[in-house]
């Protein structure tokens, strides 16, 4: 337990140092606006992939509707800030709460489904959310919601991302998290051992959806305009790719996956006609050589190198 807390503190300090360095580089103009924007996008995608990982990786429930929850958070957030002048943090939290609540409502009936059936049901729900938004004229319909104030900056993204990482890490390491992992490993056995599987599945689903909603709020206040076209099932696939590429059931993996996918997309911006072809080939090749993802089920804090550094730090 002690080690855990010390690890937490070290990681927190590490996070703040990373933030300070990146922020400094941005202030100095060494990281230009384009890469700054992409760093923010990476942060938002990390929240998305780590929260999806809680559902798919840790609890083993195959969800394909994450972009839908992101859309709910985004739209609730922008309506609150633009039309009702609610402070940014309040709008973000409200967006997260709305997405979480919807996740809870949707999860209640659908989480009885298993495997691929759950996947197609959640994919369908994500699409239903998008189509409903598209038909609401109040939020601009298919044309999108305009004139969104630009509140998101690197600090917001970074610290909300850090909070998400710690929250999910601690959740996974708690007794709730153990119950979720038990469901992933064997649902029937978990139930036999007295785990209330429905409760924990819905809990994971709700928390995942809520963080997706918050990420949606950050996303929306970064781009001046949002439209339902940004939240299609293709986008849910992209989040799933991040999770699997990084490693199902690994927070480090979720970070790496989000980083990898966003970075590749930005780095190939100058070769639009080859961008998706190269991305597709990289995806297939990575699955060949690392079918369990870059990090599998391992966390960076459990790796040999990291341990060594810790030990040295501890004795010094």
């Amino acid at each position, binding site marked *: 337990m002690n080690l855990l807390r010390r690890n937490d503190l070290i990681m927190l300090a590490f996070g703040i140092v990373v933030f300070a360095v990146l922020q400094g580089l941005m202030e100095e103009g060494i990281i230009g*606006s*384009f890469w700054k924007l992409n760093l923010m996008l990476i942060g938002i995608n990390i929240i998305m992939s780590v929260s999806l990982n809680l559902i798919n990786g840790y609890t083993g429930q195959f969800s394909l509707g994450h972009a839908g929850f992101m859309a709910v958070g985004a739209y609730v957030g922008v309506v609150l800030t633009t039309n009702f002048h609610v402070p940014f943090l309040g709008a973000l939290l409200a967006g997260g709460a709305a997405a979480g609540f919807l996740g809870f409502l949707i999860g209640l009936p659908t989480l009885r489904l298993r495997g691929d059936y759950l996947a197609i049901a959640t994919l369908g729900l994500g699409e239903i959310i998008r189509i409903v938004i598209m038909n609401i004229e109040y939020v601009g319909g298919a044309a999108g919601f305009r004139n969104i104030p630009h509140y998101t900056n690197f600090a917001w993204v970074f610290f909300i991302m850090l909070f998400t990482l710690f929250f999910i890490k601690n959740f996974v390491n708690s007794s709730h998290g153990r119950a979720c992992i038990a469901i992933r490993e064997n649902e029937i056995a978990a139930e036999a051992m007295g785990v209330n599987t429905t409760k924990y599945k819905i809990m994971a689903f709700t928390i995942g959806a809520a963080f997706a909603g918050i990420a949606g709020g950050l996303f929306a206040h970064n781009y001046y305009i949002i439209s339902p076209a940004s939240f299609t099932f293709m986008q849910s696939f992209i989040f799933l790719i991040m999770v699997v590429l990084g490693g199902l059931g690994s927070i480090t993996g979720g970070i790496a996956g989000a980083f990898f996918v966003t970075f590749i997309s930005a780095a190939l911006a100058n070769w639009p006609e080859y961008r998706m072809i190269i991305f597709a080939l990289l995806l297939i090749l990575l699955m060949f050589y690392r079918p369990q993802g870059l990090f599998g089920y391992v966390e960076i804090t459990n790796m040999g190198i990291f341990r060594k550094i810790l030990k040295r730090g501890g004795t010094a």
Partner: protein
Amino acid sequence: MNFSKKSMRLAGALLGTMLLGGVFAGCGGGGNEAKSDEIKIGANFEMTGNVANYGNATLEGLKLAIKETNDAGGINGKKIKLIEVDNKSEASESVNAATKLISDDKVKLIVGPAVTANVIAESQVATDSKVPVLAPDATSPAVTVENGQVKDFIFRSCFIDPQQGDVMAKFAVDNLKAKTAVIYIDNSSDYSKSLGQVFKEKFEAAGGTVVMQEAFLQKDQDFKAALTKIKTANADVIFIPAYYEEVGKIVKQARELGITQPLLGTDGWDDFKVADIAGADALNNTFFSTHYSDKDESVKAFIDAYNKEYKHAPNVFAALGYDAGKLLVDAIKRAGGDDPVKIKDALEATKDLQVGTGIITMDKNHNPIKQAVILENKGGDRVMVAKIMPEAE
């Protein structure tokens, strides 16, 4: 943890490379010094994704205009360098693309994107960095004017929706003697929705009634269900403001279902694909407004040049891309350099400029005053039935 050291190292190495790559790419952007003998122009277009065919066609037209200028020696000895970025047909990616063009590539002006929502998305970034935007085919009024305020740095080089909707509504009432109309719009496009609205207002103001409104979505294949419903309304005309890909299928399926009324459309119809998909017979008795007639003598030079360059005929997007190219070349010439603010002032002062498809003058709302024509599809050919010059607002 039963995890091999080798695979861990692989993962570490990959991550490390990615981080390093990021730093280098980040630095690379800053070191991009502009050569003094070229003027950098950004092209932010839909090159992949749902509306890639519109973005790519516009870009082809634009490239032709720029190539012509460069082949003729450039502007005051400076060549134009076009830097292309893909926005994946998404609003947020359009912001990304514009940011890249402005901050990494240091362009002096951005052309594009094709679709209204994507232009609106980038306009704040461009305004903040004082880089003018020229939208070749975004026809929604909100592109240049929002809440009664003209956006300083945003321009377009095509006419706007109210003009087209007005023209077609008057044509339906005056020439076709229509009393009732059905409006069938593409609900996923701002263009289509806003035209539907204008048409409804103008048509009803002229004494007609809109008896039914139906909608479809981009990339739909089968329109028969909605068309069956439209058939029951038995209206005098059906107004379909949409893009050619869907229009071809709609016209074909409408005629198959026995809908014989005149079908009306807008510049999104202006592509020979419509005739290919629908067939010449089905296309009889349809009318659409657009920017030029390909029979017009003054347009011939552009069409020939385009055919020579790309070995196929231009569509309306290509023509508008070409117009935008001509407009920006003229503005840079008059600006006497590549200072973005001066280019902006020059764009504002554009007057009686001959472009590929007509003559344009920029009005105070940054919208060009430009002719519109109405074409009729007749026996596999297109006949011009009206040419309308708008009054300046």
